[in-house]
């Protein structure tokens, strides 16, 4: 094992002989040292992304963020919507040269109150994410992690030190699903979710519903029960529509009816804020007051069409709406 290293970033814990890369493609054993190949080298950088696109609906609604992503991912979902960057090597795409200082400068220049680490998987560009987050906080800019949460505890604690919000993609409430469709496991993701909430990060959960694979309402019920019990009923849940993509082109898009039923199921299990995304369903993106039932924030796509939130509370009945509003 001379010269081998063991990566401790994610539950895979890849053991790498010299010259070999981890499963994420972006961490390489270079002469006995583990090197990140993507530090300061995003392949996607968007200066004015709506935060609703992440999606985070209860975090600075109506604002824009700078979004960055490098190549690589430590999961390999067969339905990945960003596989052209998540499932390639660093040398396959020409990156931008964008060190942390320039990301933060771009956020200031474009008057974005937050930076999102997104599109692929911020866990695999851990050092870049962490350093950019710290610098952003120094300058009063908030950070949003958009992640699948497949990470070990120690690095997650470090990432959360400067994370203000996260959208965590809970693929399904089934270990078999994680194993067969994502090449991962469920348990570390659930632990990451609990830890993030415990550490005070504002967390929203996304569940992509893939027809025939994870659209079973019984499984969705169990997932919602777990969210309500372990994370709390105020944690927003986004059901997202699947589109035929990557290695799952043989399946149809998720029917609107399935998403609406999932939403009704989640509400019936006690979750207070449940959304339907990637499709225009009437009321699917609206924040509804759980007490009086009035619309607090009306949305159409990523746009906010009406805002009746007053000091973080429902403008009609005064009930506090959980979230980070300023």
């Amino acid at each position, binding site marked *: *094992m*001379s*010269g*081998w*290293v*063991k*990566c*401790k*970033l994610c539950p895979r814990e890849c*053991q790498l002989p010299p010259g070999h890369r981890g499963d994420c493609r972006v*961490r*390489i054993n*270079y002469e*006995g*040292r*583990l*090197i*990140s*190949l*993507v*530090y*300061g*080298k995003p392949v996607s950088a968007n200066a004015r992304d709506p935060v609703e696109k992440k999606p985070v609906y209860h975090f600075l609604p109506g604002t824009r963020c700078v979004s960055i992503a490098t190549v690589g991912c430590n999961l390999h979902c067969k339905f990945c919507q960003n596989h052209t960057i998540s499932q390639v*090597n*660093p*040398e396959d795409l020409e*990156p931008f040269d964008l060190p942390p200082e320039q990301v933060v400068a771009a956020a200031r220049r474009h008057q974005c109150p937050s930076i999102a680490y997104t599109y692929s998987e911020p866990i695999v560009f*851990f*050092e*870049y994410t962490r350093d950019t987050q710290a610098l952003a906080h120094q300058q009063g800019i908030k950070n949003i992690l958009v992640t699948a949460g497949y990470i*070990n505890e*120690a*690095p997650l604690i*470090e990432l959360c030190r400067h994370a203000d919000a996260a959208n965590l993609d809970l693929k399904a409430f089934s270990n078999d699903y994680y194993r067969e469709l994502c090449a991962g496991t469920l348990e570390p993701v659930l632990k990451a979710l609990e830890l993030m909430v415990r550490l005070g990060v504002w967390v929203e959960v996304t569940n992509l519903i893939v027809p025939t694979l994870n659209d079973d309402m019984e499984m969705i019920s169990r997932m919602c029960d777990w969210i309500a019990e372990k994370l709390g009923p105020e944690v927003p849940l986004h059901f997202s529509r699947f589109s035929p993509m990557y290695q799952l082109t043989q399946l149809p898009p998720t029917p609107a009816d399935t998403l609406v039923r999932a939403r009704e199921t989640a509400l019936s299990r006690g979750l207070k804020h449940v959304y339907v995304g990637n499709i225009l369903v009437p009321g699917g993106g609206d924040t509804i007051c759980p007490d009086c039932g009035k619309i607090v924030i009306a949305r159409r796509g990523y746009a906010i069409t009406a805002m009746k939130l007053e000091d973080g509370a429902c403008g009609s009945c005064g009930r506090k709406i959980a979230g980070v509003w300023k």
Partner: protein
Amino acid sequence: MSKKPEAGDRREAGRVSRRGFAGSLMAGLALMAAGIKGRLKLAKKAALKEADYYERMD
């Protein structure tokens, strides 16, 4: 003056054929080497930052 192998001249045709195969093999290897070299060059262009959260296994 080189002699083109004639139809039916199996020994000569075989020798030409082997030379063709060897040539193809060498060309293929050269291309692969160029490809690997190019990829390594691109990889080196990326910023090399030592990662956190790893341990040596020596």
